[in-house]
């Protein structure tokens, strides 16, 4: 039997964009696309792709679908999971999706999963590097009425259940969950693999399958945001660092300690 796995992936501005290139358009409350720095798939979502690929490496018969909702997809970025070894890419593309919040995203993804499913495992990364939110995958479990385990660092498939390790501050929990189940995967699982040449060639020949909002039975009015963005801005840094300069580097170290004592910090 083939295990069907869907991995949720989001296109984000490259988080390695140098701070000097990070600019906000305050008239539209959005981030200017940085010059010459293409978007990427959210790095934490690649951890989830890696988790699915590790199940295949362990001998399971899996089909891996990558699912994303958004606008203005850049195919070179979105095909990276295919180049790593995923089988299919399903995109829900609509210009209105740039302006919805996570409550709308969850509804759309749930509808797409119901249309394209059934799936045995629904995987997401632990958070997105743009809006730093971590709750689309969690919300999806609730909307679909499925069990949820967050922060998974290890998973093994059994015939009708999964054995999981969930990261906690000083160790991990051992969890058994039935299938189907929704999981968020944490970076402790391991670095996502680099695509090899063969993977890149195969990915270049694959075409994404596209769903529109209408295919899923939505119109953009159904997805009004619950949170209205009033202002997006770069905070002023009002800290002024006091640099300690001694006669040489060892003396600077000594002077630093004395200065901290003077301020009653140590």
């Amino acid at each position: 039997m083939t295990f069907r796995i869907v991995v949720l992936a989001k296109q984000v501005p490259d988080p390695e964009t140098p701070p000097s290139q990070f600019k906000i358009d305050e008239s539209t409350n959005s981030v200017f696309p940085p010059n010459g720095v293409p978007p990427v798939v959210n790095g934490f979502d690649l951890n989830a792709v890696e988790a699915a690929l590790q199940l295949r490496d362990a001998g399971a018969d899996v089909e891996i679908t990558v699912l994303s909702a958004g606008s203005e997809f850049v195919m070179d970025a979105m095909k990276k999971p295919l180049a790593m070894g995923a089988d299919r890419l399903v995109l829900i593309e609509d210009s209105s999706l740039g302006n919805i919040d996570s409550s709308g995203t969850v509804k759309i993804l749930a509808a797409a999963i119901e249309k394209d499913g059934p799936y045995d495992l629904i995987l997401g990364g632990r958070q997105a590097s743009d809006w730093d939110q971590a709750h689309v995958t969690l919300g999806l479990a609730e909307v679909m009425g499925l069990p949820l385990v967050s922060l998974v660092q290890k998973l093994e498939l059994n015939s009708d259940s999964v054995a999981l390790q969930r990261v906690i501050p000083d160790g991990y929990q051992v969890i058994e969950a039935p299938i189907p189940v929704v999981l968020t995967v944490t970076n402790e699982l391991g670095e996502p693999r680099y695509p090899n040449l063969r993977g890149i060639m195969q990915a270049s020949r694959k075409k994404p399958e596209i769903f529109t909002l209408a295919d899923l039975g939505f119109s953009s009015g159904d997805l009004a945001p619950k949170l209205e963005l009033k202002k997006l801005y770069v905070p002023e840094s009002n800290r002024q660092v006091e640099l300690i300069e001694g006669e040489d580097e060892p003396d600077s170290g000594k002077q630093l300690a004395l200065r901290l004592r003077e301020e009653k910090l140590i």
Partner: protein
Amino acid sequence: MTSILLVAERDGQGEISQSTLQAVAAAKSLSDSQVTVAIEGDAVKSGASLAVEKIVTLSPTDSGDAGIYDKATYDITSLISLINPDLVLFNKSDFGSVVGARLAFRSDYAFAADCIEISSTVTGLSVTRPVYGGSALAEFEIASTPAIVTLRAGAYETGTDTGSPIIEAFNSDGSVVGQGATTTDTVAEARDGVRLEDANFVVSGGRGLGGPEPFSLLNELADILGGAVGASRAACDAGWIDHSYQVGLTGKSVNPDVYIAVGISGASQHMSGCSSSRAIVAINKDGDSNIFKEARFGVVGDWEKVLPSFLATVRDLKA
């Protein structure tokens, strides 16, 4: 009137956590607020004088639900239906992040995570949260109620007000809808010393350390200060130190009195885990690195030359 349900958490001693006391201060900062605190397990000593109107105790969860939070999600959903709050406030902890998101999506409520500021507006609530790894702040207005909000640790100072809340037990109808996942075991990876999240001093190392060995020096400094060692993601990913020491967006959030960053460039994803420290002290050989924009005190220099004399002087001062 703003009616607020605040979901409390406990510290290692079972008392009300510092983060929860900060959330109480955030709740009290809203105009004309009426605060009900929900807490799992029996009410505790530190609750009796909490500056809130009411404390509701929930029956404790069992070990099979640890980290899954089916019961808390169910109980607090029921409690919300009963008291109809305008705002439900959680800490941005593991518990708060999961339970807050689950119950918000279960009931189609507005959800704002990891907020650093909350205020009342004419039509509802305004919340501010860091985005893009702390490079920007976003301010949102939420008109629908209840709004489910998680609050970042250290965003508010712990209040000094006291009160005498009424204490009641909330009896759930008992029909907890478990979703089928079960925790069968908890494996502790033993660590010595002070917990990173509770430490008043944190000494963190980054890529600039160049390898695992220098962490012994950082450990020594942390021991003298009675603090804990942390690390940047780069140092953890390089395998120099375990991921459980990681400070930042994907690691732990700390708010010590003094955060000493050694060989850390201060990428925004790291700063979002330590920016609420009272004072950041940076030692880095690159004077242009971002850490000096956030630090209060700094030395531009090679840590191999700066740190040993810093450590020796601290040891003398503490002797």
